[in-house]
């Protein structure tokens, strides 16, 4: 029961029932990315005269974290590209690395060498002295 109420009101863990209902009625599946996030666009084309662009949205597979969306799908979601990557995949250059989510605040967050979070051993700096120990 609690889970059900959560599905109605809480939007930051999984998509709410409202979103699912809307997706069922008006969504047209466009594709999915490596993480399993599903991408939809509106079935109904908005009249051009209204100046409304096509509606595009994502239903996350798990955590609602915007940084999970890879660059090519991000571009499609934000109307940077007309065609989704499932139809017109982006060219991948040799130097490109796979998409990663933002690790800030998590255990895998980056700490520079010398930070207490990564061992705390830093290179010597001005004023450092070597203490004598017997």
């Amino acid at each position: 029961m609690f889970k059900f109420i959560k599905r109605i009101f809480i939007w930051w863990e999984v998509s709410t029932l409202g979103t699912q209902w809307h997706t069922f009625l008006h969504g047209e599946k466009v594709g999915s990315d490596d993480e399993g996030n599903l991408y939809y666009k509106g079935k109904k084309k908005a009249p051009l005269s209204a100046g409304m662009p096509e509606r595009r949205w994502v239903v996350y597979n798990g955590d609602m974290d915007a940084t999970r969306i890879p660059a090519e799908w991000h571009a499609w979601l934000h109307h940077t590209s007309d065609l989704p990557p499932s139809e017109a995949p982006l060219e991948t250059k040799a130097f490109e690395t796979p998409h990663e989510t933002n690790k800030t605040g998590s255990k895998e967050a980056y700490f520079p060498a010398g930070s207490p979070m990564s061992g705390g051993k830093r290179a010597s700096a001005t004023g450092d002295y070597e203490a004598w120990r017997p």
Partner: protein
Amino acid sequence: MATLTIDGIEVTVEAGATVLQACEQAGAEIPRFCYHERLSIAGNCRMCLVELEKAPKPIASCAMPAGDGMVVHTKTETVKKAREGVMEFLLINHPLDCPICDQGGECDLQDQAVGYGRGLSRYDEGKRAVKDKNMGPLISTTMTRCIHCMRCVRFATEVAGADELGALGRGEGSEVTTYLEGSLNSEMSGNVIDLCPVGALTSKPYAFTARSWELKKTETIDVMDAVGSNIRVDSRGNQIMRILPRLNEGINEEWISDKTRFHYDGLLKNRLDTAFVKSSGKNAKLKPASWQDAFKAIKKAAKGVKADAYGALIGDLADVEAMFALKTLLGQLGSKSIECRLDGSTGQTSARSSYIFNTSIGGIEHADACLLVGCNPREEATLINSRLRKRVRVGGFAIANVGPKADLGYPVEELGNDFNHLAQVTVGTHKFAKALKAAKNPMVIIGQGALKGKNGAGVMASCLELAEKYGMVSEDWNGLNVLQHAASRVGALDMGLMAGGVDKVLGDKTEIVFLLGADDVDADKLKGKFVIYMGSHGDAGASLADVILPTAAYTEKQATYVNVEGRVQRTVQATFPPGEAREDWTVVRALADVFGVDVGFNNMGELRAKLYEAYPHFADEDVLDGHDTKGFATKTVMKMGKVTSIAAEFAGGYYMSNPIARSSNILAEVVANIAEQQGSKAHG
């Protein structure tokens, strides 16, 4: 005397002065690279060109003797053009690497190019490249930057006495080199870094660590030897980045020894940054403790200890305030057992003039005969040795040595390592006696090596007799000199910190021993005693202690030192002591509370007031006492062995003579380099 007109200003200069000196006197600034006041005149950079009326072309003012009636112009169009031309030629082969050059910001060429050069370069051909030379662990070379002023060559030849630098090749192929790719065989080699007007010779340990404008400059004095060289300590944050000399004509002119210049990294190594207390039990070990715990341990050990069971030994780097505080503390506890002569020297100490360098360092230049007795001034007081060398170069200076043979960098008549020669000179039968007799201002320098041990008193008595016989002490001249080599020694002797030798202080009845930075102490003699070590560095003394109280090094406190001439000088604090370390006298003040006695001062002002009250001369900074001759009529019958060797060896070697120097990696590298060079010489 010559009277010249410079830019319309009439000046009178001494005979022998140059046009450049006359211009300076008239307030006209003359750019120069090769000219240096303390070196011979070379006249090869041509930067000092000025216009002389009736001369067909501009003259090099540094090399032109000032003549009567000369009319000189330094601000004309011709002079400006000449300087621009010279600068343009200098810059043809000088790389444009100021952003990566250590000299940047304090470079003569940079400054003068801005002041006297053309705005633009017309040169677009290739620049010449010169291979860098190896000059040992202290001097880093970038010979492409060299402008061939030859200051370093002249310095090595004239001042350092190491004829190992020179120029090879001609014209564009000319290169300054050490010939054999080795470091200079001199304790003064670091001065070429200051002399170099460009970035060709820079300090290797300092390389790329700091820029001159980001450093805090603190003018203080050096304690590596008893000379008390005036230095400038450059620090960034709490780290001393380098040490430079400061001008003091009376002491170090503008030179300092390599030990003074390069010991600074030792100030950040082996530091005592917390108190230590030795744990009790079988495996007693020193363990870090708080000040309170350390004081508690001392209080416990002091329970029921009799007044005469306290003793103190003074190390070589102790300052006057700390020694005075410790003396007062011991006095309040009821003990007089405090000793500064750790090396076992037994010189006469009844009058101040019998343990200081009476002639004064500057006074050496007026002497005309000198007898060295058991001393090696090159190692014991490098700057005094360079003064002696300066005097030798002038000529008319008879100098002889009684003691072990030593290479001092100038010719010395070796009389032999035997006291009997000294006796013969004193009696007047030796051939050197003639030179002393003929001299107007004769002097004798007695080293600590000669005053050590059984013969010390005899040597001193003999030298006093010698001084008297050859008129070394008169109204306006005092030629009797004792060469101390510990920075603390003269100050300690001034306060009478003598208790009949180390053995007496560490006698059976002594139970608690204070070591004020004293490291050269025999471990066996300290057995069974409660040892309180106060010092800045963990060295031999610290490992013998039962309680260690960390104190500040000389750059971390305001303190008084008395140099070998009896000149009172003060250090200025450049950085802060590490961790829990405190200034020495404050530690002694805290100890007074632990022992429950009143030493009568709570701050530096009160301490100094008490100090001046007891010993007024400590208030007179940078003053020589004059030629105090009292206490010289000592007639002791000479009792000396027939053949006795005089040991003037420096304990632990020249570069390793104190805890700071021993902690220094740079000086350790120097020692290793010297050993390597000597090894290659022996095998090659």
